[in-house]
């Protein structure tokens, strides 16, 4: 089975059913599939071949979803890049994944990159009136000019379906390779425990560039439901009103989303249609779980845990939320997890060790990074099999339910996004006047953790506002420090390494 099969099957089974709602636009399964076929034919005619990467640099939008399925239909692997990524990081990612095509709304960026990025054979511009201009094509022109005929490509389920970029502890993002069998397996497993059916309408505010957001689209178009795609949770009132208007049954969120909701007067919104809510990316505080259970008595609450390298690993069956609200549960259906000690031994209840994950959802490794791959993905018990070392510390209770304890590295989890301090420190060190910098996560009631930077700087050259401004211009919003503290020096170990524990 391939990742696009669900959409194609639903085009035949229920062509007129609404598949996608975005802003004021509503598209049926027949329309989504036909648009994806047209774009796929344009990609192929312009040189995209089986296995090529297609970068999608767009906000959550109909065009982004069409771009995902068109790439799959063309035999390529899609790479969704968060639309707030700054130019330097965008250039790095494109240089790393070497896409044959780029789909974007940013005309200036597209033109600039087409010159700089030699692998690019084609730039598709959305929202543009452009027809055809050398290597640039207008999305709408493509929809008028190419046939809605399913391309004939030889993709098999071992081919890559997508690359998903994630923070690397070295400071550079790295891409997780996901083949079609990984994607369809995990899609099916999650649909199974959420008990999704074609009657479900899922509202997603999560970016398609993250695994959590991406799979809302892949899953919903597979089980034949309706996906209401929002660009973000920046306007909570508008989003919550839409839950009632669209009779939304499933609402995936991260702790920041639920913390924001709980600060609002929710009684004025009609949330009665919600059948379930899910939380992932970071642990939901137990008090928030209890408040949500009171406010949404008819909705099942799924606490989940995952990492990009396996997409999802654990979920807490909703009937356990009241029993063990601090747990993120058990292995997702069809997979296995265990906790391992420092010598590779499996640990029993209440011992703390690293969570190990085994199953067909363990992805194929990191793109062009064999060394990082060998650290994270270890050979499994059977030849050719991979086991994922999560890098996260867990403990298990007597009944086998898992509890997140902490990370093995110093990654910060802010607003549901994992952020490598090194990436921020690299930016800080590139600012003239900064002598030394160290970044840590500090507790924050809304964001989970907030980014705090300790800076040793030449006071004559730099003020706090300069550092904030520089970070904003070089880092995505969620990475930019919320706090900056100047220090005359940073605490160090005897070997000269910054002692971050002493900064907390």
């Amino acid at each position: 089975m391939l990742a696009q099969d669900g959409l194609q099957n639903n085009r035949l089974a229920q062509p007129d059913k609404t598949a996608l709602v975005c802003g004021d636009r509503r598209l049926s399964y027949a329309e989504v599939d036909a648009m994806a076929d047209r774009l796929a034919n344009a990609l192929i005619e312009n040189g995209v071949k089986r296995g090529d990467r297609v970068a999608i640099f767009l906000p959550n939008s109909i065009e982004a979803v069409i771009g995902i399925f068109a790439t799959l239909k063309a035999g390529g692997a899609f790479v969704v890049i968060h639309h707030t990524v700054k130019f330097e990081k965008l250039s790095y990612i494109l240089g790393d994944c070497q896409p044959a095509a780029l789909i974007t709304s940013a005309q200036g960026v597209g033109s600039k990159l087409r010159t700089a990025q030699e692998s690019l054979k084609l730039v598709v511009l959305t929202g543009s009136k452009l027809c055809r201009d050398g290597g640039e094509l207008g999305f709408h022109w493509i929809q008028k000019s190419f046939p809605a005929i399913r391309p004939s490509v030889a993709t098999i389920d071992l081919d890559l379906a997508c690359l998903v970029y994630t923070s690397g502890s070295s400071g550079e993002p790295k891409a997780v390779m996901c083949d079609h069998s990984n994607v369809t397996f995990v899609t099916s497993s999650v649909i199974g425990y959420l008990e999704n059916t074609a009657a479900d309408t899922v509202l997603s505010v999560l970016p398609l560039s993250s695994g959590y957001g991406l799979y809302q689209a892949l899953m919903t178009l597979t089980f034949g439901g309706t996906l209401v795609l929002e660009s973000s949770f920046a306007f909570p009132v508008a989003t919550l009103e839409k839950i009632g208007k669209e009779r939304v049954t499933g609402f995936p969120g991260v702790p920041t989303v639920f913390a924001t909701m709980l600060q609002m007067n929710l009684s004025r919104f009609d949330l009665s249609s919600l059948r379930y809510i899910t939380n992932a990316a970071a642990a939901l505080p137990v008090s928030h779980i209890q408040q949500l259970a009171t406010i949404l008595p008819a909705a099942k609450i799924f606490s989940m845990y995952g990492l990009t390298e396996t997409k999802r690993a654990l979920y807490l069956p909703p009937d356990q939320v009241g029993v063990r609200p601090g747990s993120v549960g058990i292995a997702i259906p069809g997979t296995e997890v265990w906790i391992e000690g420092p010598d590779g031994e499996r640990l029993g209840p209440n011992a703390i060790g690293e969570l190990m994950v085994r199953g067909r959802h363990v992805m194929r490794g990191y793109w062009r990074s064999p060394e990082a791959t060998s650290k994270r993905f270890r050979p499994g018990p059977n030849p050719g099999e991979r086991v994922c070392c999560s890098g996260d510390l867990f403990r298990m209770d007597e009944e086998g339910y898992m509890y997140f304890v902490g990370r093995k590295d110093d990654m910060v989890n802010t607003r549901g996004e994992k952020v490598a301090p090194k990436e921020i420190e690299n930016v800080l060190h590139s600012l003239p006047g900064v002598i030394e910098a160290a970044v840590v996560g500090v507790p924050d009631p809304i964001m989970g953790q907030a980014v705090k930077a300790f800076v040793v700087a030449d006071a004559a050259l730099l003020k706090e506002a300069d550092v904030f401004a520089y970070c904003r211009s070089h880092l995505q919003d969620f990475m930019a420090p919320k706090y900056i503290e100047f220090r005359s020096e940073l605490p160090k170990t005897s070997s000269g390494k910054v002692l971050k524990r002493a900064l907390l």
Partner: protein
Amino acid sequence: MELAKQIGKYVTENLFYVDDGFEYDDDTSFIGEGLIDSMGVMELLAWVQATFDISVDQQEVTPDNFDSVNKLADFIRRKQSILVHSGV
């Protein structure tokens, strides 16, 4: 300073830090074009309340009121007009 210009100056200096290649005008959607995210909206809300001495209810933080320079300028004018007419 004209209101739209004042807003434009604030968001450009404090929220956008736009790289070249990202073009925008006073009708460009902040969110739709990825110029600011949800935390940016919260910062914008705090700035509007402090700078223009108006109180903004959570229900008013909507795309219609906050998602571009011109929309925000219209919203602030409406709020100020209500304050004047109510004699506050």
